[in-house]
């Protein structure tokens, strides 16, 4: 069985968001993290064809935060401090997308992460974002990194 990404200590099957979306975290050797998922009908916008950009924002915050947790020597709870997103293209309901986050750095207990959502083939950019996270907020310790 493949080793779980540290973020999956937080996003277990008991986590309501994980229960809603089928999310598996795949970390890369380049301090990145990817999640592949289908855009859910539960986030459909007025046209019923596309999902609302609120879905982009939700997934970006989730995957970028998970990427930050994965880079910490000792995984601890984090909290989003700032999230800035640009939405370029609407995603269709049911369309498979890849959300990729890339760790940039950490300074003064703040983690800096970049993220994007692309079509599953990787050619169409739907959103890109930058986020900062406060490292070590209230919550249950996540345990030692394996």
């Amino acid at each position, binding site marked *: 069985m493949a080793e779980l990404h540290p973020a999956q200590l*937080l996003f277990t099957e*008991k*986590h*309501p*968001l994980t*229960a*809603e979306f089928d999310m598996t975290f795949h970390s890369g050797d380049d301090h990145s993290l990817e999640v592949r998922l289908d855009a859910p*009908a*539960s*986030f*459909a*916008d*007025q046209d*019923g064809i596309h*999902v*609302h*950009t*609120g*879905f982009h*924002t*939700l*997934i*970006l*915050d*989730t995957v970028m*935060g998970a990427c930050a947790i994965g880079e910490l020597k000792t995984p601890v*709870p984090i*909290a*989003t*401090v*700032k*999230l*800035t*997103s*640009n*939405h*370029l293209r*609407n995603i269709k309901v049911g369309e498979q997308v890849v959300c990729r986050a890339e760790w940039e750095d950490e300074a003064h207990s703040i983690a800096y992460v970049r993220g994007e959502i692309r079509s599953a083939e990787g050619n169409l950019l739907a959103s890109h974002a930058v986020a900062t996270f406060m490292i070590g*907020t*209230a*919550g*249950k310790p996540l345990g030692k990194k394996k």
Partner: protein
Amino acid sequence: MSALFKTNISGWLKAEPTERPSVYKTTFAERHLGNIWIRSLHGGVTGSMIELSAEAETRLHTSDSEELKIVSSSIDYLRISKDVDLFARTDIERLSKRLSVVNVTCWQDDEDIPIARGIVTIRIMR
């Protein structure tokens, strides 16, 4: 009520307008949790609500024939949230023929203690 509040995403967020002009509400649900140990809202839920509220407010000032596209949002998380309802007060900073720029302030128990604020830019397609 705007058609935006009859959409699936509004149902997921449990978002609706309030009796106060320019103020919107999301009723807390378990699926909105981010940190399940301290039971705080997911930052993405707050972000989604900020974008949805900005769009709803812009819709009140545009015609149905104009298509709205959210092009960017920038959100500052000011305080730890908790497992109660979330309110969003919107203020259109600038509405031109092609763009709407909306400030959104979110709070839970006390309007004077905001938990997040955001600025959303919306393209108006005529």
